[in-house]
């Protein structure tokens, strides 16, 4: 079965739904394809908030926030690797994006004067983070879904995209496996927007939803697009010990403090000015070092203490966090400190896209966490990813609307051929017997990534890590599934996800090995300093003849000159 649309959006999170609404505003025929129901997308889990210089809360010295302040903090936070033109666009558009959501119905938390509340977040010079308690993603996603569903925009739920289809060097659609029936569908479109989220689950300790397997970047890479800055992986300082569920930075924004086993507020030593609210890379490394030097608790964690905030503030501002701590760690933050450790949280890298979301593959656009438009550079500030989703969800949709005006749909033939080859491939996988099971291999990969490409990196370990990835890639060719059915075969989906994850793991590894410096989240113990002379540039990874190639391209600098980052 082949479906025809002007614009096909892969992914039903904040970026995808925001784009879908914009495409619908323009009167174009658009659809969303998602491997889960849109409300189950990982956007729903975003807690702390969305940065925008509304200026509803004044800074410490009574001054008002501005998009320029937001841009400065973002560029500094990125360790100067972000493209400054993209950052400017993000920060200029951020207030509009927040207000748009408000107009659509999002229930933001409010100040006493009734305006949208804003709180301090790491690495930010002003209280800039707009929030809906600690359920900001949930509130925003439900709002967008309400409108998408109200406008009857077609959503292909529980469709797993199996390939992007190209013709004459242009992306013209995709194939997707309908989970419930096992049928492979074809989609033909004038433009395809990838908005499929991050790839955090290539690491074993991750805050990400289990579905965050990076399917989009892997599909794009195979189809001829490039990946950018894949080595920059954000480790969030505070994930719940045991399950690695996120404990929002907002907990520290509200006044929570980190304590080691000796009850010492150790962040005073690492970031004398910002203390617990230094950016994530700084805080994550500090915690890791405390643990490594024996000042953590057994098992490898420190304490996040919220008790001094009092029951009223905790229940009002951080109700979700309190519930998570009770449900998943048996700890009530009103009475006891919360055990936390760093865990993978965000993929700064992704599909190389320009300021309009266009990729190296004409017809394919990318936005949101799966993309690297490069507003986060080497380290993302808390609250900047949510705003990126809705700002670029809309802006990239606008570019697509402009571009498809003069385009016609390609003919069905290449999509038909792609359906056939996808069916052959699936049948081939299902026919295999013997070999290893998919689940064990996945654990080997995720452990390898955390052990060899974690918070502190070093050449020898990374070499071993890359060898291991290559070995697993070999093994995966022999994996077999017990379940041989076409209909609702989740083992098959997990296998297809794993194939893509191994590609991304290799891209992370190659980027990290080649970058012989420390910048933002990428910390090399063998190259501890930032090296602007040789590495103030973006890493690109492409696939040619099944071999990965690393190249570079310049960073778009601007008014903010690279300086040493001090917090």
């Amino acid at each position, binding site marked *: 079965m082949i479906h025809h649309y002007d614009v096909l959006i892969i992914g039903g999170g904040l970026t995808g739904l925001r784009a879908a609404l914009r495409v619908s505003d323009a009167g174009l025929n658009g659809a969303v394809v998602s491997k889960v129901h849109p409300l189950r997308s990982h956007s729903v*889990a975003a807690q702390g908030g969305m940065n925008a210089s509304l200026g509803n809360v004044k800074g410490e010295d009574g001054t008002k926030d501005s998009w320029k302040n937001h841009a400065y903090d973002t560029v500094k936070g990125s360790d100067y690797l972000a493209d400054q033109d993209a950052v400017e666009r993000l920060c200029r558009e951020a207030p509009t994006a927040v207000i748009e959501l408000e107009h659509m119905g999002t229930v933001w938390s409010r100040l006493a004067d009734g305006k949208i509340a804003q709180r301090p977040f790491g690495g930010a010079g002003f209280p800039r983070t707009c929030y809906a308690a600690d359920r900001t993603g949930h509130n925003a996603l439900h709002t967008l879904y309400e409108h998408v569903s109200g406008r009857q925009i077609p959503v292909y739920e529980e469709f797993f995209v199996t390939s992007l289809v190209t013709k004459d060097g242009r992306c013209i659609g995709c194939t997707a496996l309908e989970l419930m029936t096992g049928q492979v569908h074809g989609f033909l479109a004038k433009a395809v927007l990838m908005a499929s989220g991050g790839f955090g689950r290539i690491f074993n300790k991750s805050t990400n939803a289990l*579905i965050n397997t990076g399917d989009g970047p892997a599909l794009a890479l195979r189809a001829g697009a490039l990946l950018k800055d894949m080595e920059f992986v954000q480790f969030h300082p505070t994930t719940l010990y045991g399950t690695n569920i996120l404990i929002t930075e907002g907990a520290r924004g509200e006044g929570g403090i980190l304590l080691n086993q000796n009850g010492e507020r150790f962040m005073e030593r690492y970031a004398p000015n910002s203390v617990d609210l230094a950016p994530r890379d700084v805080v994550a490394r500090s915690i890791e070092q405390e643990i490594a030097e024996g000042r953590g608790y057994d098992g490898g964690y420190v304490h996040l203490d919220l008790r001094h905030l009092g029951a009223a503030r905790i229940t009002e501002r951080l109700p979700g966090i309190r519930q998570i701590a009770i449900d998943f760690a048996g700890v009530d933050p009103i009475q006891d400190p919360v055990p936390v450790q760093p865990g993978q949280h965000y993929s700064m890298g992704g599909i190389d896209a320009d300021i309009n979301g266009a990729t190296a593959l004409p017809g394919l656009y990318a936005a949101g966490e799966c993309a690297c438009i490069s507003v986060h550079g080497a380290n993302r500030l808390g609250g900047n990813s949510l705003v990126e989703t809705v700002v670029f969800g809309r802006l990239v949709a606008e570019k697509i609307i402009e571009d498809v005006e003069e385009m016609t749909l390609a003919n069905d033939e290449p999509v038909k051929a792609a359906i056939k080859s996808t069916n052959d491939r699936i049948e081939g996988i299902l026919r295999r017997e013997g070999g290893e099971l998919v689940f064990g291999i996945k654990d080997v990969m995720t452990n390898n990534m955390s052990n060899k490409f974690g918070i502190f990196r070093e050449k020898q370990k990374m070499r071993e890590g890359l060898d291991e990835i290559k070995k697993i890639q070999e093994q995966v060719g022999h994996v077999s599934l017990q379940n041989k059915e076409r209909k609702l075969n989740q083992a098959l989906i997990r296998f297809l996800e794993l194939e893509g994850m191994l590609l991304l793991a290799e891209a992370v590894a190659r980027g990290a090995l080649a970058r012989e410096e420390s910048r933002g989240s990428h910390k090399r113990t063998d190259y501890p300093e930032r090296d602007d002379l040789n590495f103030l540039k973006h890493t690109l990874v492409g696939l040619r003849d099944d071999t990965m190639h690393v190249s570079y391209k310049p960073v778009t600098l601007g008014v903010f000159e690279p300086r040493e980052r001090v917090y």
Partner: protein
Amino acid sequence: MKLKVYRYHEGMAAPRYDTFQLVPSPAMTVLEALFQFQEKLDDSLAFRYSCRGAVCGTCAMLINKVPRLACRTQVESLLKGNLKVAIAPYPAIGETVPWDPEEEVLVEPLPHLPVIRDLIVDMGIFFQYYRFIAPVFRPSDPDPEKERIMDPAAVKKLETYTNCVLCAACHAACPVVGQNPEYLGPAALAKLYRFHVDPRDVEEDSTLKRADIPNGWWACDLYGNCNRVCPKGVPPRTAIEKAVAALNKEKKEA
């Protein structure tokens, strides 16, 4: 420590139950136990999952005869008897298979929705009722340049209802839904109430009218199972009572 799991797929004459001995791990959730089953015993077991942190609403199922999120429910707590929820009995949670609650956790698909395979149900009707109540914020006044001003106290009241994750636990726990499949059900009604209490829409409020039909507000029998099973503390029954009171008052005045 065992998991007893409902199994069914198209073509089977009747469902069966598989029992699986779990390898214990600290604080294991029912969702983790299901992954263990899938990875160690049978990779054809089907169940939905996503966030594993009780925020996305994907993994609601009937666990020890109570609809709840598998990711938020700990196996050990169930075996210890710590997670009992007193809900009014209804046919769909009657006995299906003998099980030992001190040894086994019984996992079945959400009632009141058609089973597709194993623990996966068809949520179609649930979202059809969601769409029926038209859950879209459409204020009658034009959008101001900036945000509409809201009293923080009103936000608090609203949050009680915006917290719904649409997991359908309440739908599965509602005895009325079981008797009358055309009843809009607690989730859709609580969602509609959320728009009714949104103070930003200042015009004459007709929101409640959208469910002013026999299968809407009026079909609720006030069992209150919905309030008791909601994993996010949303109280649909409370919303329905308030809506009914408001509509009755309006009708009296007219």
